[in-house]
């Protein structure tokens, strides 16, 4: 009777929160940290390249909200749905998909608001990143998340052959259940990417920047009553129009990604290829 460990420990941790004023709450409550290989500040650029084995790659970024508001949904998606994504894409006729997985947190509250994998062509390799993303389970109570970090990373820190060689846009999917912050403050850009200089940018503009080489979609998961409310959908519709997709059953998310890619991927014909640049394109840091 009485004195349950969890109630005691939680109180003890709260007693010490001043020591943590520079740390996020997540570090206090779970004290786990981002995997060094997924640290975006160390990622200059993530490349998605053609090879003999995969001559016509299609670059696909899947950025999943891994914060607390999503409950167990991210875990299900990471463990059950996404491992089959590459298979689903191939079945649907995309022969050389390359998938980059990003974990999205909340840059106001979380220790790891952005975690980045690598573009991978096989389920096994993708799985490595999926299992390493640490599920924040945090997220602030501010009804917004930092999905725009995914747009930022895609726009400024990826280099993809499908666009650079063939003018076929890649695909960027953010997946979550909340509105997006209205902008990315300069200090956040400096803190969570390798950029040393930065200016604050609105979400609208960073999406435009990402749209230069990606088809940008957001999938809003209606996984509980809370997430079905209009105020949880924010201004996604205004930002993305028909590319804002509401998903009633989160278990279908991988299949929906595959469907969207199939419907929107433009076949490559060499005649339309106006890209004369060489392979060693420098990714411009538009800052």
């Amino acid at each position, binding site marked *: 009777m009485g004195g349950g460990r969890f109630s005691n420990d939680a109180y003890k941790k709260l007693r010490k929160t001043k020591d943590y004023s520079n740390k996020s709450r997540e570090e206090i409550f779970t004290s786990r940290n981002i995997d060094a290989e997924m640290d975006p500040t160390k990622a200059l650029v993530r490349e998605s390249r053609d090879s003999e084995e995969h001559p016509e790659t299609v670059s696909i970024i899947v950025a999943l909200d891994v914060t607390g508001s999503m409950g167990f949904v991210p875990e299900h998606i990471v463990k059950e749905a996404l491992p089959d994504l590459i298979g689903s894409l191939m079945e649907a006729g995309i022969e050389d998909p390359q998938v980059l997985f990003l974990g999205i947190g909340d840059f106001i509250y979380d220790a790891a608001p952005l975690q980045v994998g690598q573009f991978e062509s096989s389920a096994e390799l993708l799985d490595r990143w999926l299992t390493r993303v640490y599920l924040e389970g945090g997220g602030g*109570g501010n009804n917004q998340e930092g999905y725009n970090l995914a747009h930022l990373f895609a726009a400024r820190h990826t280099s993809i052959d499908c666009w650079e060689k063939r003018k076929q846009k890649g695909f960027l999917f953010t997946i979550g259940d909340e509105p997006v912050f209205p902008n990315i403050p300069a200090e956040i850009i400096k803190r969570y990417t390798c950029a040393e200089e930065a200016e604050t940018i609105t979400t609208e503009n960073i999406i435009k920047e990402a749209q230069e080489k990606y088809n940008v979609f957001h999938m809003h998961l209606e996984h509980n009553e809370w997430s079905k409310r209009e105020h949880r959908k924010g201004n996604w519709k205004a930002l993305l129009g028909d590319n804002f997709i509401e998903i009633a059953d989160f278990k279908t998310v991988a299949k929906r990604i595959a469907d969207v890619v199939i419907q929107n991927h433009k076949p490559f014909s060499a005649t339309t290829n106006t890209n004369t640049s060489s392979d060693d394109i420098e990714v411009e840091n538009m800052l």
Partner: protein
Amino acid sequence: MTKCSIVIDLGFGDAGKGLTTDFLASQNPKESLVVRFSGGHQIGHTVSTDALTHTFSNFGSGTLLGVPTYYSEHTTLFPPAILDEGNFLKKYQPKLYFHPLAMITTFYDIAFNRAIEKQQNHGSCGLGFGTTIARNKEEIYLYANDLQFNWVLKERLISIKNYYETKLESQSKSVQEYYKNELKDYNEAYFIESCFSIQKFYNLKSLSELKKTFEHFIFEGSQGILLDTQHGFHPHTTWSYTTSKNAIQLIKMHLEEDAEIAIFYVTRCYQTRHGNGPMSKTASVTLQNNENEANVTNEFQGEFRTQVLDTELLNYAFNSDAIHHQDLKIEKNLMITCLDQLPSFYYENLLQKLDIKFNTVHGSYGPKRACISQFLSK
């Protein structure tokens, strides 16, 4: 058909309410709901399975079976602990329902509790349960309903902080110092964080709204009848009605029409007492097999004591509980636990000295529900 089972400890707590709740939940887990109707986040109810032994404080004892827990307006909740325990139990997808008026315990309630307890030694757990109830009696509130509103929550916390600062003025210097020291490195932002982070675990509901969703309502009691506010021995009492009083009221109010009600009275086959306070004089017991005792002597509750059962006290407990049964038809059952620890105990001898005829009598020879056998049935 609505079935209600009420789990009540006959003594000073620690008898095996977790085990009994888990046992009842296993009968039909898909249709069951555990209801907490007394006590709060300060409880420690232990459930053992082959995979895990867990002492619950912020989730009901049916959680390992996937049974959700409802916290009534009589209970307290401590959000940071819910977050930690919920994350720990993630695999089991723990699910909670809160009555909108369930009482929230804050950091200040616990700090004040600890400061005072250092002076008094009533056997409190030092988790702010009593102070939370006392604050609510003085009409300084923070409810489960408030947790969704950021500004409201902050303002409510300011009121609570001020309330304790006023209370402290009439306390001794040492209590004031102790309290101040508890607060020295506290940063409220983190408490507020946890209040929002637990949204993934709970929904606000009244018990009436859940009537149609479940068939078996298992009312998991807390502490024991001998610690009850009305029937215990002041000042070593809890700030809660630990008899079936609240459960009966909830049933009458939300579930009654056709509810079948059964009470499962739980006792170890020997007396236990955790914390300071009187214990009737009976012979001492020599226990075996008790190296996994979940109860340990702790700084705030004092030591853990064991003796032979006192039948007079058991009869007093039955008798006190019956006062609260109103006009309802109630079936009574007995659960005797820890039989493996005291081979000299014979349940037949005990039953002869008890004033009640039981519908069923069960006994457990270990910590898991599989260790329970039925001795008697009608």
